[in-house]
C-alpha cells in the first residue's frame, strides 16, 4: 500500500490521466496533485492518485546532489522494478 510509483503521463483527461508504468497503462486520478500535468511529465502515483508532478529540473538537481557526494557503473538485476510491477499489477481493473 505504501509504495509510491513514478510513471510517465501519456494522455491527460479532466480529472485523471493515462500513465505508463514500465509498459503498464493505468488511469490515475489528478485530484490531489498540486500542479498541472502534461503528457511527457513524470508523476508519483500513490494508490491510484498522483501525489506529485516530478519536474525534470528537480530530477537533475537530485542527480547533481549525488554527483557532489561522489566521484566515481556495472549491471545488476533490477529487483525493485519487480516490486513496483507487483504494485502496479495490483491495480487490477483500475485501467
Amino acid at each position: 500500500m505504501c509504495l509510491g510509483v513514478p510513471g510517465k503521463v501519456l494522455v491527460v483527461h479532466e480529472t485523471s490521466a493515462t500513465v505508463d508504468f514500465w509498459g503498464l497503462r493505468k488511469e490515475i486520478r489528478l485530484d490531489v496533485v498540486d500542479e498541472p500535468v502534461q503528457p511527457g511529465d513524470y508523476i508519483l502515483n500513490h494508490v491510484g492518485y498522483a501525489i506529485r508532478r516530478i519536474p525534470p529540473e528537480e530530477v537533475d538537481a537530485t542527480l547533481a546532489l549525488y554527483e557532489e557526494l561522489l566521484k566515481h557503473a556495472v549491471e545488476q538485476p533490477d529487483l525493485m522494478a519487480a516490486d513496483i510491477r507487483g504494485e502496479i499489477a495490483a491495480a487490477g481493473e483500475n485501467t
Partner: protein
Amino acid sequence: MSAAAGFNELKFRDPLRARALLERLGTTLEAIGRTPVSVMHVCGSHEQAIARFGLRATLPRALNVIMGPGCPVCITDVPEVDEGVALARQGVRVATYGDMMKVPGTKWSLADVQARGGRIDVVYSVSQAVELARRIEEPLVFFATGFETTAVATAAAVLDNPPPNFFVLSAHKYIPPVMEIVAEMPETRVEGFLAAGHAATITGWGVFERFVERHRLPVVVAGFEPLDILAGLLRLVELIRDGRSVVENMYPRCVTKDGNLRAQEQLWRVFRPIGGRWRGIAHVPNGNLRLRSEWSRLDARQQFDIDLQALWDAAPPALVQQCICGEIMAGLKGPHDCALFGRDCIPEAPVGACMVSSEGTCRIWHEYGGHPDLSDGGTEVPHYTNAVTAGGRHDFCAR
C-alpha cells in the same frame, strides 16, 4: 521511451556510486568512533528496498538501522481491525486494501470473515471502492488505512461527491506524532531519523523542524531507490558526527519544504487528528485521522452500530497477546526476540501484524533471512544488528 527506460537512466542504482557512498559511510562512522550508531527509518518502503537490494548486509556493522513504526498495516490497531470484522460479520459489505485482509483482529482477520461468508472486496484504490458503490445499491464501507499519503486519496474521494451508499471507516494514521513518541521512549537508542519521502511529499519537510528543535535529533528525508537511501543514511550519520540537529531534504525531486498544499488542504478539510493507539506502540496524541463531523453522513462509526462487545464476547483473544510487534517497531527488540516468530507466527498464518504486510519487519526478515555472519567461518547465525541480507534466503522454520 518507456517509463522504465527513463527511470533507469536516472542512475539512482549505480553500484559504483553505491560503493563510494558505503565507503564514506564507513569512514564517517569511524570518525564517530563508537558502536553502534543507531538510526531509525519510519517507512515500510525503505525496509523493502533495504532488504531487496541487500543494503543491510553491506552497511557498516557500526551502523544499526532500526525499522520503526513505518508500516501502515502493522500499526492498525486490533480494535480497528475488529470494527471492520464486526461490520462484515453484521452483513455489511466492506472494501479495503489487499494488505489489510490477513491482519489479525482480536480473534479474526477480514480474510477469516470472508472465508465464513462475509462480503469483502479488495481494492487497489479508494476510487475503485467508490466506483463499486456506484454500481450497487447496498451500503459499502471502505475500511481506510494507511498514512497521510493514503489518507489524501480517501479525502479526495470524500470530496468528490461519492454516492450515498459509500461510507468510510477511517483507521488512517499521521506519522509526525509517532516520531515524537519514539524519541521520548526512555529506552530509545535512536540518534536520528530517516523520514519517508512519500509522506513528506504531502506534508513537506518543514513539518519536522519543530521536532528536531524539541528532541535535538537530526532528520533526513530520503527517497526509495538504493542510492537515495544510502545517501540519506550518509547524510544522517554526518549530522550525528557533527552534532547537528537539523532537517535535511535528500529527496528534492519529490519533497519541498511546504509539501503538497492542495493535498494538505483536502486532507485537513476531511480529517481531524485525534489521539489513539497504534498497534503495539502506544497511545499517540494526534496520531489518528478521523472524519470531521461535517462528514458524519459518510462516517461508518456514526452511521452503523458497530457492536465490538458482541464480537469480543464471541471471540476471546488468542496468541496475539504474546506478540511483541510493538517493541519491534519501537526498535527495542528484533524478530528473533519473539517466541512466536517463525513458529506460531509465519506469513501463511500470521499472529502479529508485522508478519502480515510485505512491508512488515517480521515478514521481511522471514522472507529475506538473517545475515550470514561470514566473519567467523560462515556460520549462519542471524543476529539483530544488520540482519537482513537480500538474495540469501534462510528458512527459520518449517513452512
